């Protein structure tokens, strides 16, 4: 039987890699590998997953040094010399083994005013946003984020500046800035501007390169920079 050597992070912030031998199968994903270890080799291994089909965003890990969604990452794509190294996501506190604490990641969505605000009620008619509307096109291009944290883990600015809101929260804010129904307006721009916001982005594009949904948080952040600059020039900021 074809085996692969899998080196898995064990412990919290301090710990070490533990090696396992896992049988290799056709179309096997990295999540399959971790699940095999937990179910047959070491039941104490902690990891997180839910949907297994790339929708929930809960299974992201660092595979061979690169943040990836493990449920849609085939072993064939990442294995090197029959070896794989699996670690928790970077830039987030490790709870245990492969499980990170995502609180700060999602708290930053709230800090970036990442929730829809509206003055409409259920008595109002539907807002009509045609697919060809330019603002809607920009929302559509950024809306499919599953909140996996891969971009946040890949971002060097997050590593250097812990207050930085990060690509996912800013991308979310951008979808709301361009949403004509949203009423947060300048208050949201204030929330996402400055040293901890969009202006901290160095356009390294790591988030865009790593996003498993092929979104471009970098483009969203650039859009926010333009929107904030315009607001500042108008004296609204």
């Amino acid at each position, binding site marked *: 039987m074809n085996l692969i050597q899998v080196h898995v992070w064990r412990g919290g912030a301090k710990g070490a890699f533990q090696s396992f031998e896992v049988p290799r199968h056709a179309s096997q994903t990295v999540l399959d590998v971790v699940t095999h270890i937990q179910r047959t080799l070491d039941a104490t291994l902690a990891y997180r997953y839910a949907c297994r089909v790339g929708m929930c965003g809960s299974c992201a890990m660092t595979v061979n040094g690169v943040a990836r969604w493990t449920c849609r990452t085939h072993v064939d794509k990442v294995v090197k010399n029959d070896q794989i190294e699996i670690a928790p996501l970077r830039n987030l506190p490790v709870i245990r083994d492969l499980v990170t604490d995502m609180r700060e990641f999602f708290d930053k969505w709230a800090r970036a005013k990442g929730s829809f605000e509206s003055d409409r009620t259920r008595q109002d008619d539907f807002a009509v946003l045609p697919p060809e509307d330019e603002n809607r096109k920009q929302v559509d291009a950024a809306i499919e984020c599953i909140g996996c944290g891969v971009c946040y883990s890949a971002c060097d600015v997050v590593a*250097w*500046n812990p207050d930085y809101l990060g690509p996912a929260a800013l991308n979310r804010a951008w979808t709301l800035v361009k949403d004509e129904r949203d009423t947060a307006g300048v208050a949201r721009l204030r929330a996402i*501007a400055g040293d901890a916001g969009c202006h*901290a982005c160095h356009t390294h594009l790591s988030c865009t390169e790593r996003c498993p949904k092929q979104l471009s948080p970098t483009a969203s952040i650039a859009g926010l920079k333009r929107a904030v600059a315009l607001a500042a020039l108008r004296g609204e900021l």
Partner: protein
Amino acid sequence: MSTRAQTLLWMAQRVSAAVLALCVVVHLATMIYAVRGGLTAVEILARTRGSIAWLLFYMLFVLATVVHLPIGLRAVLGEWLGWRSPSRDAALLLFAAVLAWIGMRAVLGVFL
């Protein structure tokens, strides 16, 4: 520092970068042209001394540098050294003043 001030700093850095891009091209082109027949102080001073155009150009160059450099350094100090307290901005303001002083001194040195 307020979010608005941080935003204005970012805008100032972008604008000064555009100015610097132009200034550096002109400066490099002048250097390449000037060294063709050998570079001498006499030749440089003959071009710059009393020239209002060169005076204004190099004053703009210095001004763009004075704006651009401390803002960039502000990010470097914050990210690499974790220096984010107000003392960082005070130190950079002093740095900008020193840059302006030595830059303008050099510009006037070849004009007067």
